[in-house]
């Protein structure tokens, strides 16, 4: 484990250096957050019946989404890894006595964690003091908060084991942009980033619940706002664990296969 912890640590240190980028990110997230809530507010006003998710819950959902964007967003790309494949500097990583999968996994967790540490606090703090309906509310009880933390962390692992597949596909496509574009457009929609899943038509919801994407964004945030009850949250956690096992197994298998026929690019 030591090598992986070491690379994790260094990647966190490395990530914490980019403070100005984080500041700009925070500003952007505020604008997006307000924009989303305003749009939904307008929709909710023009609609007389009850929605599957209340506007207050929705505001909370959106602020969490903005605060933890770096944690869970699928299109977030660790350029070092993708560049190491296309430029061939993966040669050095292959010369280390470590598994590449674990190495990258540690790097990716660190990348997202350092980015989130720099960004989430200001968004969360300010969103707590906004007027209703824009306010980020507290979770209904401590247990819900605990479940939120667990689903959030497992959600991170789901996102990373999913994105590992995208990185592995770069060995074939040689184009990180292409791999990630397909991956993020599909993933973003099905994870509930664009539209919260309760607002989707039922037939679409049925499809979404079969896929792993929603376990990253939709599940933790709706658990927090109390939209998903405790029992369902626990089922969600089990589903997350099963998907993580499957995704990591598939990823490891594919990576081993790729490395056998890998061509290190460049002389």
């Amino acid at each position, binding site marked *: 484990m030591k090598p992986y912890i070491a*690379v994790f640590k260094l990647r966190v*240190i490395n990530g914490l250096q980019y403070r100005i980028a984080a500041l700009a990110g925070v500003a952007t997230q505020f604008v997006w957050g307000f924009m989303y809530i305003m749009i939904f507010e307008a929709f909710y006003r023009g609609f007389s019946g009850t929605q599957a998710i209340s506007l207050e819950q929705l505001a909370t959902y959106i602020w969490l989404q903005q605060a933890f964007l770096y944690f869970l967003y699928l299109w977030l790309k660790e350029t070092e890894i993708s560049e190491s494949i296309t430029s061939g500097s993966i040669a*050095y990583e292959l*010369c280390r006595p470590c598994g590449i999968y674990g190495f990258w996994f540690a790097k990716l967790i660190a990348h997202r964690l350092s980015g989130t540490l720099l960004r989430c606090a200001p968004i969360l703090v300010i969103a707590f003091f906004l007027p209703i309906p824009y306010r980020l509310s507290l979770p209904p009880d401590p247990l819900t908060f605990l479940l939120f933390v667990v689903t959030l962390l497992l959600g991170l692992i789901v996102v990373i084991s999913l994105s590992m597949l995208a990185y592995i596909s770069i060995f074939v496509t040689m184009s990180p942009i292409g791999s990630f574009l397909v991956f993020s457009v599909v993933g973003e929609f099905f994870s509930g980033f664009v539209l919260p899943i309760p607002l989707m038509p039922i037939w679409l919801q049925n499809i979404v619940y079969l896929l792993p994407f929603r376990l990253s964004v939709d599940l933790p945030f709706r658990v927090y706002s109390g939209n998903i009850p405790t029992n369902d949250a626990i089922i969600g956690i089990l589903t997350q664990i099963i998907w993580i096992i499957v995704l990591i197994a598939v990823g490891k298998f594919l990576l081993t296969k790729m490395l056998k026929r890998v061509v290190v690019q460049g002389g």
Partner: protein
Amino acid sequence: MYFATKNIILEVYLLIKIEGLSKTFKVARRSSGLGEAVRSFFSPKYSEVNALRDVSFSIDEGEIVGYIGPNGAGKSTTIKVMSGILVPDSGDCNIMGYVPWRDRVQYVKNIGVVFGQRSQLWWDVPIVDSFELLRDIYRVPEDNYRKNLNMLTETLNLSEIINTPARQLSLGQRMRCELAASLIHDPKILFLDEPTIGLDAISKIAVRNFIKTINKENNVTVILTTHDMNDIETLANRIIMIGKGQILYDGNLNKLRDKFVTHKTVTIDYNENASPIELNGAALLSWSKDRATYAVDIKQRGVSDVISELSAKLEIIDVAVDSEPIEEIIIKLYKEHQV
């Protein structure tokens, strides 16, 4: 019984044994132009490049081997196979009892690699952080790490740059750090792929001296590829030359010189003399009133013989003897094999 024992001894003694290594790459090719680009989108054309063709050699412990050849000859491919990151199409490779690509994780603990055109240092953090990461990756005990770091800092003169991020270092400084990074875990074999590329004269000499030291004092076997013949001349007692994926020459540098050096240049300065002197077995290349240059055919007569004949006829002030530069010998060799 006797033969079996002999074979075992032979295999322990040889650190690296490579036999019949071959590797083919598929390369996409198309001519220039938009029409051609569209056509190749629908039916891409590939051609095969034989990067390695039946390459065999073996290397003993403690050797420094210069691996040379023109661009695209297969040098880097061989290094990649030997460092376990490329799987060859056929052939055997046994290094310290491991098959590099099959036992990769176990094997790479024993080797250090520097790819001159890439970097293993983290770009945005101080060098020492990269070193500590390598310490943890290779599980180097703290005592050994301290000892190695002190030795490397001293011999490579790193004390002033070790706390600077890699991005703020000059190429020469960075290359010194790359070398240090590849040696933190006490490797038995060091693969250097163009370690002096782009360096100035002083940095080159520093790198060469360091390679010599590490080879002598730590008995590290070094395999280096380079285009700089001075690297080869100062470091390697053995060269392996490869061209178009095949080994063209494997052996001592001096023997290569004996085989290909046919002439030596003798330049003499003397007190004024009116007419040029013609000699047997030495062609007069240039002449002036106080200086003459001869190309001595060393197969016909010795250099000292020529000088003594001249000193009998002239009042010699100074003599300079130059042998053909190693670059020209290499070019001859390339030409001979048409690479």
